[in-house]
């Protein structure tokens, strides 16, 4: 861990575009748990896994049966599996290491988002949010789907709302709903078109609690922070809301059941609301009161200290960064291309955004030279310090030689083997054989006519000489020194659809 020598004075959020990744037209992205790999779903149905350290392609998951655009991509907890949902209404579950398809299911409607159950290392259960009907739990092994209730009338325990046109499966027409698992997957949180947050026990298909969101606007996205303590909702009233999760992280469902029996409110809607108020508490609201912009793909930073949201306005690529207290700290502005997806790195102050053109931009802190690093005895101060010299500081004292005092105990025991647990990851790591990186096999050189002898007049050596034809095609990344839009125009290929 290099924590002791990284400068703590700089804010922990990105500032400029450092680099961009290009491979076909990418549509959606997801980091693995440690942020060492970035999966990207493409418009041609394939899913590309980038090695985030080398910014090169580590693997490509391609299925000949699926050629429609990928709508969402999701990692299993320890990186063994990836779930992709596609515009051809299918869900595909992949084994990452073997690059094999484990299962494939087709749903009645295109799933806009699909998330694997976060509680297991080899999950086969997932939560899918279709285009315009209720979210459902899909078992990838059997293909069974369980539709989740999106309003209390669906489960018959409350007032029946006035009848509207319904689909044959009973769900209301064009009611987009957002849904997500909580941290360990025992509960599903659903946001419906009436602006209500429902806490659902997905095993028993039962609504346990309801939280009405102020404004009652349609909820478009929902996501938990990595530590499971905060829930973010993005509503049609152009407001992002943060709720504090009042349930215990582990065993949230059990706690709910126990408190249900304990409460003495009457049954029905009121009781559900009372339970809901014990599960979530509104913490903050974010909106841009001047431009009143709609938000796209909002999410938390890895440590939950920052919230980011992309502007959904076409033709601009703006990312707003707020701190948890609600202050807007930065607006990142990229090239004039709409933003379609956003992700914050689990550990580093790095943000990755996907533009409509299919490029993935990597935003990082602006690199400033750390001048105190150049000499061993320089030390950075937070502010100017007043120095008062001693009375005899500048006196000449020829007889006493200045000896460098070593105030170090040279007999102290040193531990060269002991390693501390990484504080950023609270769950036990290595026991599950987590996949942190994919083995890198060097792609063989294409034999050149004068292979073995280095030219005698090579000066500052262009490193591209050794790149084989294979790797040129496989994926490119470009480096930018600033985020102005002009340098990119020349690089954008015309192959995107």
């Amino acid at each position: 861990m290099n924590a002791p020598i990284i400068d703590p004075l700089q804010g922990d959020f990105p500032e400029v575009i450092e680099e961009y990744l290009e491979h076909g037209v990418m549509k959606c992205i997801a980091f693995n748990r440690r942020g060492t790999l970035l999966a990207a779903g493409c418009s041609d149905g394939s899913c590309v896994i980038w090695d985030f350290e080398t910014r090169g392609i580590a693997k490509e998951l391609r299925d000949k049966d699926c050629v429609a655009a990928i709508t969402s991509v999701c990692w299993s907890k320890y990186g063994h599996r990836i779930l992709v949902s596609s515009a051809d209404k299918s869900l595909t579950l992949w084994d990452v290491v073997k690059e094999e398809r484990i299962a494939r299911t087709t749903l009645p409607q295109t799933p806009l988002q699909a998330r694997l159950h976060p509680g297991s290392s080899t999950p086969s259960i997932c939560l899918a949010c279709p285009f315009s009907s209720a979210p459902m739990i899909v078992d990838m092994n059997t293909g069974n789907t369980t539709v989740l209730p999106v309003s209390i009338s669906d489960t018959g325990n409350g007032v029946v709302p006035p009848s509207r046109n319904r689909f044959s499966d009973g769900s209301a027409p064009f009611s987009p709903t957002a849904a997500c698992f909580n941290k360990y997957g025992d509960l599903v949180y659903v946001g419906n078109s009436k602006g209500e947050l429902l806490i659902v026990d997905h095993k028993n298909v039962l609504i346990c609690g309801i939280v009405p969101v102020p404004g009652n606007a349609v909820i478009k996205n929902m996501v938990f922070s990595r530590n499971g303590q905060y829930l973010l909702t993005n509503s049609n009233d152009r407001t992002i809301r943060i709720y504090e999760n009042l349930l215990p992280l582990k065993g949230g469902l059990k706690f709910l059941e126990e408190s249900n029996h304990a409460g003495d409110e009457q049954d029905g809607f009121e009781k559900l609301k009372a339970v809901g108020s014990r599960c979530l508490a509104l913490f903050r609201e974010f909106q841009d009161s001047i431009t009143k912009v709609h938000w796209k793909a909002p999410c938390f930073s890895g440590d939950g200290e920052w919230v980011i949201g992309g502007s959904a306005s076409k033709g601009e690529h703006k990312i707003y960064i707020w701190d948890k207290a609600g202050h807007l700290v930065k607006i990142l502005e990229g090239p004039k291309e709409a933003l379609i997806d956003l992700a914050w790195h689990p550990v580093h102050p790095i943000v990755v955004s996907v533009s409509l053109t299919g490029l993935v931009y990597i935003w990082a802190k602006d690199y400033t030279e750390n001048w105190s690093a150049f000499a061993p005895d320089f030390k950075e101060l937070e502010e100017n310090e007043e120095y008062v010299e001693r009375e005899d500081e500048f006196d000449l004292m020829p007889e006493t030689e200045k000896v460098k005092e070593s105030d170090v105990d040279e007999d102290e025991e040193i531990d060269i083997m002991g390693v501390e647990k990484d504080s950023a990851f609270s769950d036990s790591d290595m026991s599950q054989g987590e996949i942190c990186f994919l083995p890198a096999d060097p792609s063989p050189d294409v034999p050149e006519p004068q292979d073995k002898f280095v030219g005698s007049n090579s000066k500052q050596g262009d490193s591209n000489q050794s790149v084989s034809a294979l790797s040129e095609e496989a994926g490119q990344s470009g480096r930018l020194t600033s985020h102005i839009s002009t340098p990119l125009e020349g690089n954008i290929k015309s192959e995107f659809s």
Partner: protein
Amino acid sequence: MANNGNPTQAYRPYSLKKILTNHTRAVSCVKFSKNGKLFASASLDKTLSVWSSETLTKLFSLTGHSDGISDLAWSSDSTYICSASDDRTLRIWDARSAECVKTLKGHSDIVFCVNFNPQSNLIVSGSFDDTVRIWDVKTGKSLHIIRAHAMPVTSVHFNRDGSLIVSGSHDGSCKIWDASTGALLKTLIDDKVPAVSFAKFSPNGKFILVATLDNTLLWNYSTGKFLKIYSGHKNRVYCIASTFSVTSEKYIVSGSEDHCIYLWDLQGKNLVQKLDGHTDTVVSVTCHPTENMIVSAALDNDRSVRVWVQH
């Protein structure tokens, strides 16, 4: 030769098990693979040899470089070897098929030192052109070219999680770099003299073992202070590699220009054993990851690789 640390355990000395002569010129480097099954030696005769740790016999040679080799490194899964050569290139060899898979070109002078990161998707190299380069293993491209020093870079090493790189140079400085951005994070030593001939991280990444001419020191790099000094050996000219021995008690092992191998107790800093037998400067030593075995290599007058075990 009393052991300061643990009075109840008597020190069990190492003794020579076998002498392996194969190279036709000075041997510059020996390294065990991470799984301990093999070790490789690099030589000024432009070849590398791969040996079995169990039978202590040579398995095969790797040829292809057009000039002498100064350093080699194993990938974490013990499949690939990377060699740094005076012909200004690095080569990645597949240790299973004994073939050269890739050549990394870019340095404008002798490449002197090399190492893989723990994930083995990156290679760091230091050269006489004063730069440190970070290479992508898969594509062979230079991801970062760092103008690291004012004189030849003698040593480069990644820390335990691959986030930092330490580099040492003839210009007397030892610097720590951020592996993902190539940014300078800290300068450990800045005196022009003596040259830093070797630097590597401790197994847990918290300390740095630095060799300057005539002294070997253990530094705590976050406080910037050195903690232990190991001396008594002779090191005025060559870049002699030292290492940690952690399979039984903790020792620091180093070669020396007086043809011996020195072992010091890590905590007590006292000299525990001096292994003699080589007939020239012992320039490289490596310790087996799990067994008490040391392999050493020496320069032109000797040209042998020697295997030492503890009884």
